């Protein structure tokens, strides 16, 4: 047990904590896909924390943070560890504060439709418990089975129904959090401002430890209307989505798949058993690895008019939900708009099938990695007027390195998020010193793809992340996103909330010190 952690154990004999080797391995990372490559290479836990502590009350969190402040011990708040950007990347001095034992409902106001819930509450049980009372939060991230309320707030999360209910930032009425000095503060939504809640949401554990949130609820819908529409191209599809949202329609689900992704969706969004076995290491995996050595050619083929024709065009999955005849009236209005915009009605099947398998897609990563490949996702956003440039720019940038497909699943009246999914393999190793290993060469492809894609997103006027957050994976690029003024402003906020810089140090912003506690997750200089 390290010295700081021994001191913590002495200071809080009543709080559950552990410096056990297995626990330290379990808390050494989140679900950043680049970690998976390290794990596959045998580097299971390079970033082990000093230990883990499990507080059960806000007061305990505050006392632990005060101790950390006094001893200048860095701490990282931890939910369920399902972040995908290396927002959690501890080192041997860091103490992880796991909030999952802080998971009570403090109060439910069924008439006013609000809930005070502690930050460690897991997503799915929260929604199921609300549903039993005829209520819903309306927040359905793909990670709902392995994420917490605090994690959603930390990452500025989006759920599948963001088109109707908004993102998590649109659901928070009040926050209780612990600043870097150990002070418990209560922040309140204020329509006319000043509203400090948006500053803490998305701050990824660098400004305060969120301990409780007051969330806005909705009556749980009893009726749904389903439809699928095919479009000649992805652009035709997003023009139709734009028209719907600007006409005032708010579908709970509107997901537009590019032709390849649409082909997969039409085949069945999850043929799970088959998918797993086909991707297992063996002849199929070898063929796939060979194919992915030439991603540019495949991408060009599939993205062009030929690909669109062969694959059957793009597919829009649409679900309205509500009460009585509301959803069917909205669907009729949507059908009228979409038909005018070259949409061809494809029946209810695609939408019903999507709903049935709505959380399955996130669990298809393991077979890809087991096959010696890698996969990841990138979610960018822009106003509608910049969407074409963003789509083409990022797709082209990624496509030089990896196989890429896309869907658009978070639309707003003024713009949309594009969600790129990609898979790649090892870069050719000839002449690259020190990169003899397969996984090291996979990392090289991975880094090249991300670096090119992030530059392309900024060049096209898009934002680097719509709902996954920044973590350490995008931190080196934050000056491109926010400008020097924005980075200075976030640093000023950090100094105000956390004067000693003990909360998740190294996360969110590019490093300033010449001797960082951690290396950049994505080095600025990527080997050519």
């Amino acid at each position, binding site marked *: 047990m390290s010295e700081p952690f021994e001191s913590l154990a002495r200071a809080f004999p009543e709080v559950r904590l552990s410096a056990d080797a297995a626990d330290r391995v379990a808390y050494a990372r989140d679900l950043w896909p680049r970690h998976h490559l390290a794990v596959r290479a045998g580097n299971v836990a390079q970033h082990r924390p000093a230990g883990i502590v499990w507080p059960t009350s806000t007061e305990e969190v505050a006392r632990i943070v005060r101790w950390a402040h006094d001893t200048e011990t860095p701490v990282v708040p931890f939910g369920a560890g399902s972040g995908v950007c290396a927002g959690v990347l501890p080192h041997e001095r860091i103490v992880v504060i796991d909030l999952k034992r802080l998971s009570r409902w403090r109060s439910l106001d069924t008439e006013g439709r609000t809930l005070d819930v502690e930050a460690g509450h897991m997503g799915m049980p929260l929604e199921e418990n609300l549903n039993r009372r005829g209520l819903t939060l309306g927040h359905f991230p793909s990670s709902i089975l392995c994420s917490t309320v605090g994690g959603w707030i930390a990452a500025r999360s989006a759920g599948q129904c963001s088109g109707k209910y908004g993102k998590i930032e649109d659901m928070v009425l009040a926050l209780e959090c612990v600043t870097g000095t150990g002070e418990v503060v209560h922040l309140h939504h204020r329509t006319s401002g000043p509203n400090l809640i948006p500053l803490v949401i998305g701050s990824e554990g660098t400004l305060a430890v969120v301990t409780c949130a007051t969330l806005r609820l909705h009556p749980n819908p009893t009726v749904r209307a389903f439809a699928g529409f095919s479009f000649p191209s992805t652009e035709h599809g997003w023009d139709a989505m734009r028209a719907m949202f600007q006409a005032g329609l708010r579908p709970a689900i509107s997901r537009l798949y590019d032709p390849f992704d649409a082909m997969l969706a039409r085949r069945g969004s999850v043929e799970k058993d088959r998918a797993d076995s086909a991707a297992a290491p063996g002849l199929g995996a070898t063929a796939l690895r060979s194919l992915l050595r030439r991603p540019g050619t495949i991408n060009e083929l599939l993205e062009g008019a030929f690909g669109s024709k062969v694959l059957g065009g793009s597919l829009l999955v649409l679900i309205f939900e509500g009460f009585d005849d509301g959803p069917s009236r909205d669907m009729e209005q949507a059908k009228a708009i979409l038909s005018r915009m070259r949409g061809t009605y494809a029946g209810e099947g695609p939408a019903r099938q999507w709903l049935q398998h709505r959380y399955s897609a996130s669990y298809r990563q393991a077979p890809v990695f087991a096959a010696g490949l890698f996969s990841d996702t990138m979610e960018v956003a822009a106003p509608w007027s910049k969407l074409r440039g963003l789509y083409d720019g990022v797709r082209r940038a990624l496509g030089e390195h990896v196989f890429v497909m896309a869907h658009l699943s978070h639309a707003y009246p003024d713009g949309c998020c594009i969600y790129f999914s990609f898979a790649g393999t090892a870069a050719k190793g000839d002449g690259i010193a020190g990169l003899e290993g397969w996984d090291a060469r996979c990392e090289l492809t991975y880094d090249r793809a991300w670096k090119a894609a992030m530059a392309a997103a900024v060049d096209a006027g898009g*934002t680097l992340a719509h709902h996954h957050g920044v973590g350490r994976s995008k931190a080196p690029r934050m000056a491109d996103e926010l400008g020097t003024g924005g980075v200075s402003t976030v640093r000023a906020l950090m100094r105000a909330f956390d004067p000693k810089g003990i909360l998740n140090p190294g996360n969110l912003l590019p490093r300033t010190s010449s001797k960082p506690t951690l290396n950049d997750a994505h080095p600025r200089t990527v080997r050519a």
Partner: protein
Amino acid sequence: MSDLAIAIDEPSLLVGVVGTTTLSALEAALKARGLTLGVALERASTKTVADWLASGAVGSASVFADPADHLVAGLEATLPDGSKLVVRPSPRRSVGPDLIALALGTCGRLANVDYAWLRIHVKSAARPAFPLPGGRDLDPPLTEQENRLVELFASELRSGRPS
């Protein structure tokens, strides 16, 4: 900052506007194109866009009325130390704290808006409106604790420490 006093992005239904433009001038320019800011301007029409945002955008809808829709998509602002903050327009983002909040309803204590990208509406289009959460004051007075935090931010922003 754009040289244009008013720049309309019709596909995105956004307007870029210099902070010194009055709301009445903005609304007149929009009206000529069949568009509107879509807010109740009675008492605020003589205000400039910068002053209106600094004083809390009175007359605009609550975010809880239509969670998919936000009033401000991006802005350029001057911080207390004179440096510039640019938040490029985007429907949503997940890149750290939402810095737009520094300028909304803070009466210039944390940022002064030089240019803003605002949501606009086709005059004839329907506007969704959920019932607001009941039993709560959605505009409570600033607590002493929150006021102290705002002062702390302002002090840090004035310090002009480099990034």
